């Protein structure tokens, strides 16, 4: 038996980028190993669900949970890890607010399965679909059942802290690891429950070095249709829908620095209840038109408004999912 506090990390409906981001803290990962006993982390260590089930409740000090809750396996693990963990962190945009997998909340679950198994890019002439259970000589196999909609972690279990980002920036992860190590050593205190950690307290615009003037937009354009893009001027001012005004700081305005628009992966800024609503307010405010027809023409430059303003946030928004998706039978 080791006296080191226990650490776990799990992926639910996510892409695996959060795990990469954790490994991307470089030699700091050795601090994690030096200070924690990694008991469960499917991408890094070999431990089974039944090993977690056998642990005492509350025996894991820190669990980083990434991914949304899309199927009953995700839900089972969320509830299990909540029970076994003292501190449960919704880690990354998916666990915090649904992220890209949350955009599937626009479509009925049947459409999603059909798209995955029977489109032009999927060679499936016999229309073979996965079955929920299947008999094999060794017994009956079950695969997880998809829920109608994807939920962020806090709609399923109680969450102690939120750490947004797609993925969270490595320097922010390193800072949080440092903090937790200090807490373990009794040198620091934990932030209040429910806090958003590893972030700034303002918006991406606030960190963005581009020059800002009064905005009056007469046309919204995709960035590839703007040539040349002024490298020193606010992107929104150039008619490129940039999500910076509603997005929480913490990434050092990484995308605008690299010449592309903010897409909003750090989620709603402090005090913003509904991310998309804040962006609707921001975009609509800077349109330079008073006649409905002209406003409609300018807004045609944003062909997929929900995809634009709720790209990372649909499952965590006030409306959560489209009527089609959540009424699907």
């Amino acid at each position, binding site marked *: 038996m080791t006296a080191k506090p226990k650490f776990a990390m799990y992926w639910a409906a996510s892409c695996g980028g959060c795990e990469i981001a954790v490994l991307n803290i470089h030699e700091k990962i050795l601090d994690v190993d030096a200070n924690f006993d990694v008991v469960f982390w499917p991408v890094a260590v070999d431990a089974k669900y039944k090993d977690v089930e056998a642990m005492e409740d509350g025996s894991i000090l820190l669990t980083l949970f990434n991914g949304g809750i899309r199927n009953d396996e995700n839900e089972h693990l969320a509830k299990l890890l909540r029970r076994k963990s003292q501190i449960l962190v919704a880690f990354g945009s998916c666990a915090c607010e649904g992220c890209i997998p949350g955009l599937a909340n*626009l479509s009925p679950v049947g459409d999603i399965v059909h798209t995955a*198994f029977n489109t032009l890019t999927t060679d499936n002439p016999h229309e073979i679909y996965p079955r929920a259970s299947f008999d094999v000589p060794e017994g009956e196999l079950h695969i997880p059942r*998809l829920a109608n909609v994807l939920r962020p972690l806090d709609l399923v279990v109680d969450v102690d802290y939120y750490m947004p980002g797609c993925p969270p920036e490595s320097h922010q992860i390193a800072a949080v690891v440092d903090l937790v190590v200090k807490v373990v050593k009794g040198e620091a205190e934990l932030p209040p429950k429910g806090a958003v950690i590893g972030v700034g307290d303002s918006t991406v615009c606030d960190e963005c070095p581009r020059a800002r003037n009064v905005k009056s937009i007469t046309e919204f354009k995709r960035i590839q249709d703007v040539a040349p893009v002024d490298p020193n001027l606010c992107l929104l001012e150039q008619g490129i829908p940039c999500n910076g005004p509603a997005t929480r700081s913490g990434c050092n305005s990484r995308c605008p620095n690299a010449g592309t628009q903010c897409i909003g992966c750090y989620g709603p800024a402090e005090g913003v209840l509904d991310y998309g*609503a804040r962006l609707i307010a921001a975009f609509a*405010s800077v349109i330079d038109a008073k006649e409905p027809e002209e406003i*409609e023409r300018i807004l045609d430059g944003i062909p997929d408004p929900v995809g634009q303003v709720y790209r990372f946030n649909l499952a965590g928004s006030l409306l*959560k999912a489209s009527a089609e998706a959540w009424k*699907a039978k």
Partner: protein
Amino acid sequence: MNDKTFEPTIIGFTCNWCSYRAADTAGTARVKYAPNVRLIRLMCSGRLDPTFVFKAFAGGADGVMVTGCHPGDCHYVEQNYKALRRFILMKRVLVQMGIDPARLKLQWASAAEGVQLAAEINKFVEEVRALGPLHWNLDYQEAVSTPAMEEVTA
């Protein structure tokens, strides 16, 4: 869906300088309008954060009415144009979310137009009544059921 007993809940956002006073004018003149609308006074239609609208729908409202000064008459010069632009973009989002955009209405009303505002409220209540209850999020727990793969691919 056309249940005569269904009474829609409508949240109405009014501007302090015009439409709120229009509602007041209607009251003073004893002009009756449907009690389905719950009016909330803002200082200006430009204060309307789209969050208010989505929160109303998510919280059980069947319709939302936004009212403001006529174009050119805004007390704060041109904030009602901002409301108009937000209204148009909100409608586009509602369509994608599967909410009938007719559940969101924008109405200009000056302080003197109590009768007109009352008539528009009555008209909107009947329109929303015809659309039926929205029940947004009230069925959300049902929505997170996990159907069997056979049901999904049927």
